[in-house]
């Protein structure tokens, strides 16, 4: 499933370098489409505080495609909502900077954010069957996305743009289908509509939260190919949240591995497949089915469970499951700082005490 045309990929190759937490945010305004620093989000219920996003930092260049990978409950979706300022009570963004197009949007009001959401940064969600309002027509929902940022636009003009958008996402008879309701569309078509809504105002950043997970395999490939073409044409930077490493290798330039609310390894996409440095990244990779490894017996699983985000262990949160650090006092006592390492497939920022040692051991 090679989706990318070779030249596109080469053109973006430069964007693939990691931008770790240690790098200062200064100068981010011109260079990056999006720059996140020290973002932390908690959910406070009566009894417990769930640390869904913990001190997350990363940069996203214009047109870069960053994949965020992790297990369910690792905080991927909370990270997406935090960036958009859409965390609802009892959740709350504790701290952090979110610099979008040179402007910190982390502390803007709902009204100020309204002018940015959908215009500069847009969202595609996982399940197309619940992402559209069942009692409003497709046309009304696309027009709404356009009209909220251009209130002076005439109805007919907005409708024409909505039809154009439907055509852009390969829906035939676009004019007539504007008047249909979501339940008259198939799952794949609904996801196309969701993508049309997201790109309606040509945003510079698109956050796609598991955009293909709810679709069947053939539809997945089509939707991903569509997304690939559109973000190329619109020159949109993408944050693709997924648990599917195959999609990352096909679609993304860079990748961040998320574990227990933190980005434990950030790098270009080649690095993670050639020289996964964090033990968790390595374990994650081993869980991907691969026909060449059939002889090695059944697929390995990562032992243990992800930690409870409301009572995190001290030290490295992966330590209890880690084949290296499980029995080491250091891993259980000290939280690993980001280490910048350079491996055979480029640089990476890794939150592991053994990052340097492990990268030296990589056999090429």
């Amino acid at each position, binding site marked *: 499933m090679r989706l990318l045309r070779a030249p596109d990929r080469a053109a973006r190759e430069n964007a693939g370098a990691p931008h770790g937490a240690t790098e200062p945010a200064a100068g981010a305004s011109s260079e990056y489409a999006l720059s996140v620093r020290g973002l932390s989000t908690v959910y406070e219920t009566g009894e417990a505080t769930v640390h869904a996003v913990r001190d997350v930092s990363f940069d996203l260049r214009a047109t870069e495609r960053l994949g965020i990978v992790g297990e369910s409950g690792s905080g991927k979706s909370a990270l997406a909502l935090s960036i958009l300022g859409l965390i609802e009570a009892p959740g709350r963004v504790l701290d952090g900077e979110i610099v979008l197009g040179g402007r910190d949007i982390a502390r803007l009001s709902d009204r100020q954010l309204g002018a940015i959401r959908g215009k500069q940064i847009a969202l595609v969600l996982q399940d197309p069957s619940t992402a559209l*309002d069942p009692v409003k027509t497709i046309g009304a929902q696309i027009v709404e996305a356009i009209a909220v940022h251009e209130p002076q636009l005439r109805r007919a003009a907005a409708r024409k743009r909505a039809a154009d958008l439907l055509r852009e996402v390969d829906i035939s008879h676009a004019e007539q289908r504007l008047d249909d309701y979501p339940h008259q569309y198939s799952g794949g078509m609904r996801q196309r509509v969701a993508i049309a809504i997201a790109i309606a105002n040509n945003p510079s950043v698109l956050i796609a939260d598991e955009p293909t997970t709810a679709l069947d395999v053939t539809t997945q490939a089509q939707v991903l190919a569509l997304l690939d073409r559109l973000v190329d044409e619109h020159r949109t930077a993408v944050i693709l949240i997924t648990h599917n490493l195959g999609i990352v290798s096909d679609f993304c330039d860079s990748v961040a591995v998320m574990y227990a609310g933190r980005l434990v390894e950030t790098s270009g996409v080649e690095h993670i497949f050639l020289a996964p440095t964090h033990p968790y990244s390595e374990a994650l990779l081993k869980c991907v089915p691969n026909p060449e490894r059939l002889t090695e017996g059944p697929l390995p699983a990562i032992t243990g469970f992800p930690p409870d985000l409301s009572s995190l262990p001290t030290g490295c949160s992966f330590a209890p499951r880690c084949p290296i650090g499980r029995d080491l006092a250091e891993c259980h006592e000290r939280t690993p700082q980001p280490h910048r390492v350079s491996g055979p497939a480029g640089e990476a920022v890794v939150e592991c005490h053994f990052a340097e040692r492990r990268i030296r051991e990589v056999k090429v």
Partner: protein
Amino acid sequence: MARVIGLRLLGSIGAVLGATILAFVIMRLLPGNPARLILGPLATQHAVNSLSQQIGLGRPIYVQYWRYISDFFQGNWGYSYSDGETVKKLIVERAPATIELALFSFVLAMLSAVALALLATYSHRPITDRIVRGASYIGFGTPPFFLALLLLIFFFKTFHLLPGPEGRLGVQAIPPPEVTGLYTVDALLAGQLHTFWEAVEHLILPSLALGISSWSFLVRLLRANLLEVSREPFITVARGKGLRRWTAFRRHALPNAFLPTLTAGGLVLGEFLAGSVLIERVFNWPGVGSLVFEAIIKQDYAIVQTFILLSAVLFVLVNLIVDLLYAVIDPRVRIPSVATA
């Protein structure tokens, strides 16, 4: 769509038939002569014999049943022995008072339920939510006639804020010229603002007493629906478009949360129209409920029997209308989904 309407219609007809059969069987099962029951203890044997003939006693049971329902649907509801009037005339006279009370109470319950459900869910304030839920529990648990007495003691006897149990208007007031029979509407049509206000004042306490338990039900239902819908991804998508929180809520959460409430609203309105007997009694409200109460005391069977059937038909009718309305409003019912791969 046609299929949906057809099924609903069939169901409604079935429900009405069920109600008539029940009422019919109960009357035949009661000891004594049904004609005597209908005509009351004071009727002459001659009158009883003549009615027995008319309702077909002694004929096969299905003939009797057929006479019974055809009389009912033709509006031949018989005579009130205690009043000497036709039952039809008595009920038609009293209906506007009951309808006005039911509608007023319904609007009040609906609006306040929506407002409170919004208050409890829109902004995350657990304390407000708890108060609203607590209030709805109390509303559920309090018998309406008891609440009616409490309201009277508090608002009328102690603080003189609202009029007491004197019916639809003050003792000396003159009703507005009759157009619809609803005093509030007629007063407005005649431009009598003072009478309008007096009619509203008289409506408040009975409406509260009548509506409280249904209000509790509506609040809880709406609150649950709003909570559920506001967590739907399409709300997040709407906000992701750049809609402000309230706009997304109003355009997308409210309509979706209201759809199930529509059905509940139909049930509640039907209940109000049929079930205000005790409340009307407490407030001396000159509606159908009071008529029925008096009829029960006087064992005026013709009135009671008609009332039972009429409430059943009305209840079914209101819910039929709601169901059809639902089909018009909800595109998922109106338009079949296209099976696409």
